[in-house]
């Protein structure tokens, strides 16, 4: 009886250790930091009354092939990048409406199309950084959400 209990204890201790360590590792790999908090730590993508939710996106815009000057190319690419950035913010905050349509004839797919649309009023988004390289402009935008802003 004592021997079996001792054996069970000896087997249980490493198993518990393995379980604890493996659960920690799996939880670390499973949690994906989508939003970063103001202090740089990963926060849950749920707006709570205690914390502030900071959403960062990178909008991309391309300069037109025909422009009168490099400055105009930069300005137009930045505009397009801002539009893309605002769209990404709206997508994350409000969501995307997706509509798909498939046409099937004689049990064969004839046509497939998808439409996505976003419409939102964005308040308090800021441009943090702008880069322009080889005709591609990238704008890093940030919006912080908190209860005080939402209820304002």
């Amino acid at each position, binding site marked *: 009886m004592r021997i079996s209990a001792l054996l069970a204890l000896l087997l249980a201790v490493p198993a518990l250790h393995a379980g604890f360590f493996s659960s920690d590792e799996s939880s670390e790999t499973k949690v994906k930091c989508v939003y970063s908090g103001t202090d740089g730590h990963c926060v849950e993508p749920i707006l709570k009354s205690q914390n502030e939710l900071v959403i960062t996106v990178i909008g991309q815009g391309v300069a037109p092939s025909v422009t009168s000057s490099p400055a105009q190319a930069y300005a*137009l690419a930045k505009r397009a*990048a801002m*539009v893309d950035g605002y769209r990404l*913010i709206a997508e994350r905050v409000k969501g995307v409406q997706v509509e798909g349509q498939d046409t099937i004839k004689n049990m064969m797919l004839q046509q497939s199309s998808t439409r996505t649309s976003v419409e939102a*009023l964005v308040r308090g988004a*800021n441009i943090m950084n702008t880069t322009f390289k080889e005709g591609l402009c990238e704008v890093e935008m940030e919006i912080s959400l908190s209860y005080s802003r939402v209820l304002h």
Partner: protein
Amino acid sequence: MRSRNGNLPFLLTSLALSCTIAFGADNYYIGYRLSAKNTQAIHENLTVSKAMRPCLPENTASVIIFKCAPQESLESVLKREQTAFLEFAASDELRVKSNDFFASAQIQTLNSLTLPTKCYAVEFNDESVTITATK
């Protein structure tokens, strides 16, 4: 509670705002619309109109200052400093509308940004113009 050093810029900004709005500032309605197709800006429209009635100031107004030549109109200043003004105004409020279409052989995106037409107090000085969001 604000520190003593932190209060001074706040007070100065409030004073400048009050002076700008109270003395010699004209009110203008400014709106903006930008369309982009396939990540390229295709159309933008900036509308500026002088207000027929004075606008009421709001509590948390923001200010931007541009350099301008004497006798330069607000339209020309805004066209020259359009990017800076857009960033200033867009941080407050902006409407975004996006429609994407994906089919077998084509992908098309059409996005538009609309800055709702708002009233701004505009004060022209000798070499600068101060624009304050009022409503």
